[in-house]
């Protein structure tokens, strides 16, 4: 599988579900692609990179830096570092592991126990549910809303009913969460079966009350990596207000760019950087301060919609698409039969995930199954397995983060 930078992850080639296969090369030569039978346009092709390179490059960088900082002893055997970098569950979409956490697990004998198996199998099934039932079904709503690609004009054909577009953004929020956290759950589950403990990557991100809270919950392995190896080395918050804001902004900008060479990703990174700065300027720190409940509820609602707005920037094919969305949502917020159908699908395929998240939040644990009576656990298992068998989308889509 290869990654082609420069065409954007949502280009027709990616969405068409035709992964380019088994090429492990860094080339910029069309002759090579022709020889390999890969059909790509010379206009869009810039670089071909191996899948998941962003993940294991960061992982190897972390190792190098930690060895330099003398926080980690250099490993003696090549096979150990190779295993750490190419550990298969994490290879294509993370989490971006740290040498301090994962490397020692390769150096000591691993054991599994009943609890690890229980957690591992649950994580695999729950991850599959998030991906195949939630994300893949949301992908249909999202695909309809963000428009099929018009090959003649090179633009997306976007419907103009605002309510449907808004629902499309909510659906994408669920899709990207189900897709990415689903993969992470599967990776963590498989690792547990092999006796490895892989770091947590998601902690109820849509329960965030502020941007900083969001980044403590979303793609934790990337946000902590950026914090430790970019934000803090840049000076962190030690150089005064202006430098702190500059560091925050730069970190988020580069975090956006990590996703791909597209202006929409740059915009998304800049947007999150700006959000962090605005919240700091307003001194809104709900996770540290004791605001009344209603204020927290309001902050949650605001943050949820700010996150969704970010997803619009992330998913939009180009800047013009973002303009069309704003225009339609704000000026034509009317319903339509298609909007109603989208709403029904959103609720139908999303309710179990949302309910489970609410329960996780209320019980203050990510593994409520461990605390429940066996009969409740049995029913949750039935819901998940039956959903996987009966509701999984027939048209599976590739994991979004495989493109990064």
């Amino acid at each position, binding site marked *: 599988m290869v990654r082609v930078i420069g065409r954007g992850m949502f280009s027709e080639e990616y969405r068409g579900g035709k992964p380019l296969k088994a090429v492990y090369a860094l080339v910029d030569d069309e002759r090579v692609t022709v020889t390999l039978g890969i059909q790509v346009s010379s206009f869009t092709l810039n670089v071909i990179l191996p899948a998941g390179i962003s993940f294991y490059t960061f992982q190897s960088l972390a190792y190098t830096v930690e060895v330099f900082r003398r926080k980690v002893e250099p490993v003696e055997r090549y096979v150990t570092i190779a295993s750490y970098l190419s550990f298969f569950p994490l290879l294509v979409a993370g989490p971006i592991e740290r040498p301090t956490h994962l490397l020692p697990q390769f150096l000591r004998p691993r054991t599994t126990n009943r609890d690890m198996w229980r957690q591992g199998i649950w994580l695999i099934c729950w991850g599959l549910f998030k991906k195949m039932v939630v994300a893949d079904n949301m992908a249909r709503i999202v695909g309809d809303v963000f428009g099929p690609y018009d090959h003649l004009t090179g633009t997306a054909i976007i419907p103009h009913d605002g309510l449907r577009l808004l629902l499309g953004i909510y659906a994408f929020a669920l899709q990207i969460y189900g897709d990415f956290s689903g993969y992470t759950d599967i990776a963590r589950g498989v690792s547990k079966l092999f006796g490895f403990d892989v770091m947590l990557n998601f902690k109820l991100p849509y329960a965030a009350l502020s941007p900083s809270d969001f980044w403590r919950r979303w793609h934790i392995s990337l946000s902590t990596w950026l914090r430790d190896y970019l934000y803090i080395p840049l000076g962190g918050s030690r150089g005064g207000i202006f430098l702190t804001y500059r560091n925050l902004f730069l970190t988020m900008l580069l975090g956006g760019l990590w996703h791909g060479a597209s202006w929409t990703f740059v915009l998304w990174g800049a947007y999150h950087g700006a959000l962090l700065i605005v919240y700091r300027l307003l001194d809104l720190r709900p996770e540290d301060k004791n605001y009344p409940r209603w204020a927290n509820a309001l902050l949650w609602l605001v943050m949820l919609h700010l996150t969704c707005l970010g997803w619009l920037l992330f998913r939009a094919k180009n800047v013009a698409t973002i303009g069309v969305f704003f225009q339609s949502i704000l000026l034509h917020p009317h319903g339509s039969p298609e909007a109603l159908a989208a709403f029904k699908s959103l609720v*139908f395929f999303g309710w179990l995930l949302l309910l489970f998240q609410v329960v996780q939040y209320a019980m203050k644990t990510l593994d409520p199954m461990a605390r429940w009576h*066996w009969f409740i656990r*049995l*029913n949750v298992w*039935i819901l998940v397995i*039956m*959903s996987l068998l*009966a*509701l999984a989308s027939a048209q599976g889509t590739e994991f979004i983060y495989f493109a990064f």
Partner: protein
Amino acid sequence: MRSESYQIPPKRRLRTLLRIAFAVAWSLLAGELFLRAFAPQPLMPRSVRASDIGIRTNTPSETYWQRSTEVNVRVHINSQGIRADDDIPLEKPAGVKRIVVLGDSYGLGYEVDLKDSFAMQTAARLNAAGENVQIVNLSVSGFGTAEELLTLQHRGLAFHPDLVLLAWHYTDLDDNVRSRLFTLKDGKLFRDQPTYLPGVKTRRRLERIPGYVWMERNCQLYSFIREKTAGKLDDLMPGAPAVHAMPAAIPIRPPTYREQLAVALLQSIQEECEKNGAKLLIFDVPSRFSRTEFASEFPAAAARGLAQFDVVSPLDEFRTNLKGEKLFWEHGNGHLTVIASHVSGKLLADHILKRKLLDSPPR
């Protein structure tokens, strides 16, 4: 550390066993409830038996329901194994014209009420035009042309048909080869295997299990598991058929063996009809690829030069006047809908009247 002589107390063992039994029973019940609430499954029972001529026949005197989110249809099979409310005497009453229908589940009118099936619609329109027509529907789900030929020879001709209406469907091409009831050697049709009874024995055994028939007709979880398992097994079978793809156009190539076999079987049916003073009319059931994409897979090219058949196809009507209508059910087994059956019945009746196919040949 548990000692080796440690024994689980019988009471605890019993409790564990009871809990497992309850969990299994509850899982099955909850699975059924889940499907009914979130993903209703079609219940499409079909009941066939071995006939005395070595092929399948509808189980006589059976009544069952076909249910999906789109249909709720009663299927009644009379004591002769024919889908009809009452038995049909072999002797043709005076003044009555008989149409014997041969076909598979499409011919039988699955997923529509008897009165809405294309055969009954044809009869209704002919009767409205002053004819006195009686339908004898000998179709059996899963039949190919080979079984239809045997059915005509051994059962259909006894009803003294004036017209034989054969529902052709593309699945007949493979069914004929698979059944091996007839083979082609040097362009000639030969009788091969004496019987073809796929799944009939297994079905009989299953039906002896108390509650099986009830479960098959009412349990969505059973239907779901059966369909999923069958689909997976089909995929795993060596030489599994490729995905049924839309044919590009009438192929410019020599006819394949299965096409030649189908044409030879149809020719035999035509000869049987001619010998017995009946005419043959073929209803070409289109293949569906999407709500707006249909195709005819009648081996027209293969038939060209070999034989001439009288064929009625609703394809043009489906593609033009009915474009966008739901013409095949989408949540069940994909048979013709009521509207498609009615339109087909009208086309067939118009054709029969125009070509005077029910008029007795001059003696």
